[in-house]
């Protein structure tokens, strides 16, 4: 039981890191970035390439991989999203086009990774990070699990503070509310959008590298599975709400872990989808969202 709780905590932390980036992009830029899962796997792949030959310190590998996935997100912003945002007058049309562009980007990145790895499972070299296992009070805990939970707490709090308190964060929220007016008031909308996409992509990368070490192997399909769970997290937590996404990530992790441990395990994926439908029906603004209903 206690061990199941530890599993859920670690799983929930990876989900949190993953969905924070997705939530940030949607909440501020109205981009449902379907390439987020591909960026997540891409960072894992970068970590694999970096540790295969050299002996970089693990922290440096992590930072470089995050920068890599962040850079791809920025490239996508510059090539497609920015142009769509400025050219398309109708918001719905812009959202649809950005969604499709991100699907295209996910195909490009996924093809790159699976061709380079020959469709094999890949993992960062074991020399780059030594996984220790501790046994205490009947629990099995590894050092990477502790790191994942700690990093999640720090990063999630920092992001929440950044969006709520900092000057940049306030500008980001202003852009989310009304890009035209905030542009008139001197906010550099395009620059801020690129910065937000970088943070979003880097967060996907952080989750991707940590997960690759923890489950000692990733492949392209992993990103897709996480995307689908992240949909559920965004919906349950309320789109754009960082605290909501954190709570929802742990909630769904606990629910899925419980189904795997005690229920019909093969229905694990159905948990997330069922939650999406339920929440959309009963409380479409998300369980944790207090904002007014603005979805029409």
């Amino acid at each position, binding site marked *: 039981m206690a061990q199941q709780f530890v599993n859920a905590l670690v799983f929930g932390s990876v989900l949190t890191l993953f969905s924070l980036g997705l939530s940030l992009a949607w909440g501020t830029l109205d981009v449902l970035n379907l390439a987020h899962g591909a960026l997540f796997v891409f960072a894992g792949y970068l970590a694999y390439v970096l540790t295969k030959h050299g002996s970089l310190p693990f922290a440096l590998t992590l930072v470089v991989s995050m920068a890599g996935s962040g850079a791809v997100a920025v490239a996508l912003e510059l090539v497609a999203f920015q142009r769509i945002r400025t050219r398309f007058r109708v918001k719905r049309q812009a959202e649809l086009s950005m969604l*499709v562009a991100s699907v295209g980007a996910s195909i490009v990145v996924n093809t790159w990774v699976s061709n380079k790895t020959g469709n094999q499972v890949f993992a960062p070299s074991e020399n780059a990070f030594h996984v220790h296992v501790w046994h205490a009070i009947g629990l099995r805990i590894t050092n990477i699990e502790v790191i994942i939970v700690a990093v999640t707490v720090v990063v999630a709090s920092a992001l929440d503070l950044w969006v709520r308190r900092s000057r940049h964060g306030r500008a980001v929220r202003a852009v989310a509310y009304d890009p035209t007016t905030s542009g008139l008031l001197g906010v550099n909308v395009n620059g801020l959008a690129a910065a937000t996409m970088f943070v979003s992509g880097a967060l996907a990368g952080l989750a991707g590298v940590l997960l690759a070490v923890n489950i000692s192997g990733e492949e392209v399909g992993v990103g897709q599975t996480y995307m689908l769970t992240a949909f559920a997290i965004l919906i349950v937590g309320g789109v754009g709400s960082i605290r909501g996404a954190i709570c929802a990530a742990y909630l769904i992790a606990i629910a899925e872990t419980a189904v795997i441990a005690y229920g019909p395990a093969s229905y694990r994926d159905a948990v997330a989808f069922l939650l999406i439908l339920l929440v959309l029906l009963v409380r*479409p603004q998300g369980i944790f969202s207090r904002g007014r209903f603005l979805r029409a």
Partner: protein
Amino acid sequence: MTTAGISSWFTSNETLIQNILIAALLAFSVQVALRAGIFSLAGVGFYAIGSYAAAILVKHGMVAVLAIAIALAIAGALSYALAWLLVRLRDLYLAMATVAFDLMVGVVALNWTGLTGGSLGLFAIPVAVTTLAMALTVAVVAVLLYLMEHGTIGRALETIREDEELAQSFAVDTRRYRRFAFVVSGMLGALAGAFHSLLFNSITPNDAGFDLIVLALTMVIIGGFGSWVGALAGAILITWLPLKLASVGTWWDAVYGGVMIFAATYIPGGLYGVARDLGRAGQRWRGQRA
């Protein structure tokens, strides 16, 4: 071309034509919804439902026409119920909810082994439709879609897409029209699925997964969702092009993704939109000369 020439061309390309016909129906399913301003991808879920329903009925000895009719009726009833459930959702939220529906259908298909054969799916389904019958069906569907794009219904749906409140203020029952478009979309998806299982004599949960969602969306975006013509053009292009570009090999997918980014960014109206704009420009040019 002589009759013999046509028939030999037909024989060597029959599989391609069959694939295009099925893809076209699926593309119609998404296009009908998008044109009415409903961002629904539920057609893929109904593709699976129609596919399994028709396969199960035909395996139990039912006549294909009747089996397809029942599959369509099931899909129609389910999509009507789903339209009621999702009535409050719009845009990306609706897209996400319908994708969730598609994937839930997949999970059920995977786990309801007694009925669906689990991950192996259903196989040895008697081949029960001909290419000619499918082509005729697609032609009939195209005529119906043409009618749906013109006249009162077409104008109402277009107004709902552009401005739902405006449509309401002109006494258009927007909920009813949206439900109608949703049900048509679901039934077209089911029709495509039924043809799939009755033609290729097997169906697995993978046949209607996330990849099919992406495929359906791609066909409609590249072809253009303004008209059924665009959806058909998208279906032909996306089915035919991979065969021609087989030499690109494993990198084909990257080209495909790049084309999607380009199409979404630069030609939002798709091929149909480009053709329409060219036509209008030509008209203006002729008008100026006269």
